[in-house]
């Protein structure tokens, strides 16, 4: 057949064949948005509610496959995580062509790495990071680890809302009476040990010990070693440390930002090689960043007397200048009053 069709026409037919069959559903396909580990995300129009939504569709048409199960589990995990920093799931099911899908809020905005290209000050960047911490901390409180925190998995919406996306590698930690059991919601195709060095998620199909999940440069050493059973909140804290490092590092489009030693120490503590040296919780990390923003001492850095004095001056600069001006003025008036 290809003898009668141009390569372009064949390619168009192929891509048309790959499109999900949304007929019979309440959604109308609009455009391709992104390709994830095992599925594709499209923009669609919800005919019933007359709104734009994002629809994640599985590549495979076998809804009973492991991948289909996993996509449904991802949808259920997201549905449990009702938080302003997590994209809400509206619907889930199986399409007429047998592909599993779920529908979520359509988020207009940019990925955090793109957002950082626009000029923003260090405090602004840190406040953005704190909002990421809030979301991750919330997920941890629900017993869920993200396991793939990186700049491309954080979105900044049109109105400044910060959303942590792609919970495809999320892991559910459950506390049973006898011992803690784990269930992983891994939603990616088997890539059998592929290592992507370009910020792409490195993924495997299973989550037992020895399997590697995450993104090089952002995944913790225990993740890189495939120690799935020893992962806890500190795994995400490592990634948050690396993420903080990226967020505070000036991009080529921004003016140079001087990174204080205290902030570097926070990054280093969060992304420490050893689990025991990291922050115990995301809220402890966020607390240190907040303290830094408020000009208070942080737990990650032991400052000397000079640094303490500098911080005190920076924190109370306006008051110190006003009081000094007042005292100087009074001294001058007293001096000239006597002479």
């Amino acid at each position: 057949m290809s003898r009668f069709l141009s390569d372009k026409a064949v390619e168009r037919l192929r891509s048309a064949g790959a499109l999900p069959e949304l007929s019979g559903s309440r959604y109308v396909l609009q455009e391709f948005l992104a390709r994830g580990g095992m599925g594709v995300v499209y923009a669609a129009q919800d005919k019933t509610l007359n709104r734009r939504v994002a629809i994640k569709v599985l590549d495979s048409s076998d809804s009973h496959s492991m991948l289909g199960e996993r996509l449904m589990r991802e949808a259920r995990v997201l549905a449990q995580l009702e938080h302003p920093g997590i994209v809400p799931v509206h619907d889930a099911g199986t399409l007429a062509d047998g592909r599993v899908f779920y529908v979520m809020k359509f988020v207009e905005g940019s990925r955090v790495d793109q957002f950082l290209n626009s000029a923003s000050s260090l405090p602004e960047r840190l406040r953005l990071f704190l909002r990421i911490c809030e979301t991750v901390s919330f997920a941890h409180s629900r017993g869920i680890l993200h396991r793939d925190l990186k700049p491309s998995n954080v979105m900044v919406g049109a109105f400044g809302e910060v959303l942590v996306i792609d919970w495809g590698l999320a892991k559910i930690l459950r506390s049973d009476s006898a011992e803690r059991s784990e269930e992983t919601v891994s939603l990616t195709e088997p890539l059998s040990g592929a290592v992507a060095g370009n910020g792409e998620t490195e993924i495997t199909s299973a989550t037992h010990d020895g399997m590697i999940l995450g993104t090089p440069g952002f995944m913790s050493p225990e993740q890189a070693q495939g120690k799935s059973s020893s992962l806890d909140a500190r795994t995400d804290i490592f990634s948050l440390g690396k993420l903080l490092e990226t967020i505070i590092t000036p991009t080529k489009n921004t003016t140079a930002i001087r990174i204080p030693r205290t902030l570097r120490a926070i990054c280093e503590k969060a992304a420490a090689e050893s689990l025991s040296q990291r922050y115990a919780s995301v809220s402890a990390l966020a607390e240190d960043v907040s303290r830094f923003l408020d000009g208070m001492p942080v737990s990650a850095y032991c400052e000397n007397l000079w640094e303490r004095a500098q911080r005190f001056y920076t924190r109370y600069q306006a008051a110190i200048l006003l009081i000094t001006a007042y005292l100087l003025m009074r001294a001058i008036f007293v001096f000239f009053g006597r002479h």
Partner: protein
Amino acid sequence: MNKIVLGLLLGALLGAIDGGTAWFTPAVRPAIVGIIFGSTFKGLIAGVAAGIFARKVNSVPLGILVGLAVGFVLAFLVAYLQHGYYFEIILPGSIVGGLVGWATQRYGAPATATAAAR
């Protein structure tokens, strides 16, 4: 403590201290009690104004500016009524206003938090 109460108390305290410094000027020492009362009242008004502003606008530089401006106006009125000591009254009075403006921006609970705590 809410921002208005903080401004009121701090304004009164700094105003009293500012008035007390008149003791170092021998010429006005006999009228020190009246000066302290007047200065306290002036600080009190500046503090309330700075506190009200801090409840509406959240900006330290603007808070300081408003404090300075209110302190300046009030101190000018006092100096005008006194017919003298313009610099000695206006400059420190403005700075006291600026300090209260700074404090009300940095400290004191916002109106919503105060209401929720009740």
